[in-house]
């Protein structure tokens, strides 16, 4: 093991340029992949916190009267997944609107009739599952007296479409960069192998096992993968620190958008994956050479 480690480090030192190129390639690939993961993690959080934690407004038809309320509540509760339910009468809604608009309420005085509908504000339990919420909303809307239901489906639907598009692009880009990094790693190991062919031949002749011969190459691949991963994430972190505050500030006036760096779990996963990538490139190369 000590021999293998020593040989791997010696080889990295003696082929500095080649190893540097490989590490940079891996780090660039990891950076591209991490950018997508960063987007997915943050977008995922935005989706999770959509509509202030699963609040939805059920607007009722004009023929609704408060006598119908207990029966309606029972019907909605029977559909399940409802945490809270608050009735907001059209009078209360208008009152709230007046308070909200404050000085700009003069036009409201000209109204002959309250245009706002009676409503129920509900809080959905499992609001993180958008499809589940959609189904629940459809079931609520199917109740006779319900006119409409609003749960942020407009912007969220658009956002999810964009999210899906990014996801597909992300997968394609990740796959593409993974293959590039794999190809470069495999070729670096191949070049390292041929530059040490004499050593390998002598090792064979003195009775070294294949594991003993291959171990330094595997260590080299693991080191390249690990350093590539760390460097890629480091570059992403630096970029994130530079631009994240700017993005948050510019979006703060429109939406609450808290951009965070990748979670520790994700960082560990990326470093593990890039280390595995280094090992796998080495494995493919050696498998071909020793065939």
């Amino acid at each position, binding site marked *: 093991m000590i021999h293998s480690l020593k040989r791997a480090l010696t080889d990295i030192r003696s082929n500095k340029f080649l190893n540097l190129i490989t590490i940079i390639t891996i780090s660039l690939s990891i950076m591209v992949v991490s950018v997508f993961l960063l987007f997915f993690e943050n977008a995922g959080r935005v989706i999770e916190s959509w509509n202030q934690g699963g609040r939805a407004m059920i607007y009722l038809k004009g023929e609704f009267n408060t006598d119908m309320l207990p029966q309606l509540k029972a019907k909605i509760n029977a559909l399940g997944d409802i945490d809270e339910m608050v009735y907001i009468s059209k009078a209360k809604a208008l009152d709230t609107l007046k308070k909200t608009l404050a000085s700009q309420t003069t036009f409201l005085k000209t109204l002959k009739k309250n245009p706002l509908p009676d409503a129920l504000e509900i809080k959905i339990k499992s609001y993180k599952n958008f499809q589940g919420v959609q189904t629940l909303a459809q079931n609520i809307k199917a109740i006779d007296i319900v006119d409409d239901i609003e749960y942020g489906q407009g912007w969220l639907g658009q956002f999810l479409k964009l999210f899906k598009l990014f996801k597909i692009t992300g997968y394609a880009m990740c796959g593409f960069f993974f293959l590039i990094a794999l190809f470069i790693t495999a070729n670096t190991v191949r070049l390292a192998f041929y530059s040490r062919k004499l*050593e390998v031949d002598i*090792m064979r*002749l003195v*009775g070294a096992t294949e594991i003993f011969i291959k171990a330094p190459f595997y260590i080299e691949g693991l080191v390249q993968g690990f350093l590539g991963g760390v460097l890629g994430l480091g570059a992403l972190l630096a970029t994130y620190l530079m631009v994240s505050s700017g993005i948050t500030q510019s979006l703060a006036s429109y939406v609450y958008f808290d951009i965070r760096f990748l979670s520790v779990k994700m960082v560990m996963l990326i470093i593990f994956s890039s280390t595995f990538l280094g090992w796998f490139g080495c494995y493919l190369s050696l498998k071909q050479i020793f065939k």
Partner: protein
Amino acid sequence: MIRLFNVSKRFGGKLALKNISLDIEQGEFIFISGPSGAGKSTLLKILYLADNIFEGQVLIDGMNLSRISSSKLPVLRRRFGIVFQDFKLIPTLTVYENISLVLEAAGKKTSFIKKKVMQVLRSIGMEKKAKAFPLTLSGGEQQRVAVARAVVGEPSIILADEPTGSLDSTSARAILDFLMEYHKKGSTILIASHDLHLMKNTIKGRNIELNAGRIVSTDIMY
């Protein structure tokens, strides 16, 4: 110990070895002589498993080389110590590292390796050059290191392909004397060389003369 039955080797259409049959006993000193192209190196390569495509049978301690599994190859190879005419030292490793490689490959402990390598280096008078790199040494010194590497694992068989070919007579004699010492300790030694004169004046053993891939004579040198 080593048995060859009708061993032939072809390179393309040309036969480099033709029906070689030979028995070598434990502790023998074998000198394989003959002109260039006689098949000396080819025969040694078959014995040290650098070439496993040949006709006939080769048995080493009862193990048939044609049927040996790849997992047992390294173990069998550790029975050999090999000396090459061009030394085949790894230029990026120091003298110490070149020699210790054999013991590391055999999975020996670091403390044992250090002790053993220094012991062998002392015996060839190279302990002060332990940290030197091969290319900074003279030809004679490099061959001494190559011999040290061949013997450090205490192999039962030492195969030397033209070990004195590129050395002056003094260095060549030193190498042969060193190999003789290991022969006295019980190792079987096979030396392939065209320098029959030097061998006859230095070693005692069996001379097998090859020519055009055939054994043309066998005699004892006293």
